[in-house]
């Protein structure tokens, strides 16, 4: 049964995890669309038919953010970067953007970005990363190896 208390719980839960989810989304889609991804993901999760039965809401929200982020075409970030580069300084309402870093990250697949973020920012083991992403440990290791190689080439 759905009650106001249940809705309040969502809000409380959201307040608890919104910052880390936004960071995660930034790692996946860049800073421009991170907030939208988090909002979409949370709406999707809260409206999910099985939301009330979820044992680990935090893990579920992470997976939903990942799922929503994969729907974001990687060119979206590329387009945003082009806009940033083309914009005059006055027209940029300017979050501090490290274009080089974002351009390098943009060359990774969303899966690689997720593996890198969860491994190097959240310090999760490959097993935990695999669990968070819903893929095998082998996949995580492959994502990491390719991401490191590609980033090494791009940022050397």
């Amino acid at each position, binding site marked *: 049964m759905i009650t106001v208390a249940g809705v309040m719980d969502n809000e409380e839960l959201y307040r608890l995890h919104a910052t880390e989810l936004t960071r995660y989304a930034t790692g996946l889609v860049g800073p421009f669309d*991170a907030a939208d991804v988090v909002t979409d993901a949370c709406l999707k999760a809260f409206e999910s038919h*099985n939301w009330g*039965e979820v044992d680990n809401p935090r893990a579920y929200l992470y997976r939903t953010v990942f799922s929503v982020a994969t729907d974001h075409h990687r060119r979206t970030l590329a387009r945003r970067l082009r806009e940033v580069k083309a914009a005059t300084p006055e027209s940029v309402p300017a979050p501090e953007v490290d274009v080089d870093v974002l351009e390098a990250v943009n060359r990774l697949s969303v899966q690689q970005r997720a593996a890198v973020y969860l491994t190097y920012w959240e310090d999760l083991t490959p097993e935990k990363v695999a669990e968070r992403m819903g893929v095998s440990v082998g996949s995580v290791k492959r994502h990491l190896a390719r991401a490191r190689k590609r980033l090494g080439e791009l940022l050397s």
Partner: protein
Amino acid sequence: MSDEKMKDLMARVVEMAPEAPPFPEETVTLSPRPARRSMRPVLVFAAAAAAVLLVALPLIIFSGDGGVDPAVTTVPAPVPTTSVPETATTALPEEQVTMQVVVYLTQEPENSLQGNPALVPVRVFGSAPEGAPEVLAALRALVGPTLVPPPGLGSSIPEGMRVFGVIIEDDTVVVDMDPRFLEGAGGFLADVTMLNQLIWTASQGSPDVGVRFTVNGAEPGPYGSDGLLLDTVFTRDYFLTELNNVVVTTPIGPESTEISGIANVFEATVAYEIRDAAGEVVEGDFTMVTCGTGCWGSFTIEVDPDLLEPGGQVRLFWNSPEDGEPTNVVVVPIPEDEQGVWGN
């Protein structure tokens, strides 16, 4: 790149993170949906029977004329509960786990008078309750409303179809469908193509396993427009005659190194072309099939992933002995995603 540099990179990414957005207020006015699973017919029947009993019970008890045998009140509702064993389906979620799965989509033949629909495996995201077989996630992704077929591909499965559950029994995958499944897909070929999609998707773990269908936990009745009987264990070769003569069995992505499949083609020769996103042929060659001209054999093509450009395509076919024209062409689009996953 060293771990320190990777950590530093992530720190720089996180530094760019914007403020967390406000709580999505719309949810305050929304009630989270009740479980989407509609009541199954037997449960509806049970509920109806229970309701009838509840209404009838006072009348029976207080009828007073002895005309109604009191024993009637103790007769259990005629609910065929045994037809839905608890193990018949994988119960709907606890927690859903999202994973990459392979689903078999269809491609219409270029000339419907000369060929049958092709099956094309594509990698998508699917989800299933934690601990459920991966194939359940695949089947639910295949029939689910969120599947968006890649360019040139489609599905014979009507909208609104549902897979209730899956059980793995030794070398058989039992797929429990909702009753709507028995209506088929609208015509014999579409009916069989839908079965092929389900069978090939359900047997992706091992092409030799069989697939058996149940409907609501019970043996299925006649299926589709021709009333096909489904009281058997299907393998991938069961409906081969209704498929294109070239079938690809490996999903293709920008990092694929080989493409496998089966074919029944003239002189056991499958030709292929790799085209870039502009449609230019960047490689064309042929390979031998293990059996040909009247029999099905398998083939594997080694490819250079550098040639597999996102937005491009791989075309497989055989050349007609009459005019050399590509025949039974299968066109497999190459996704953007490095792992070959199509968004869904």
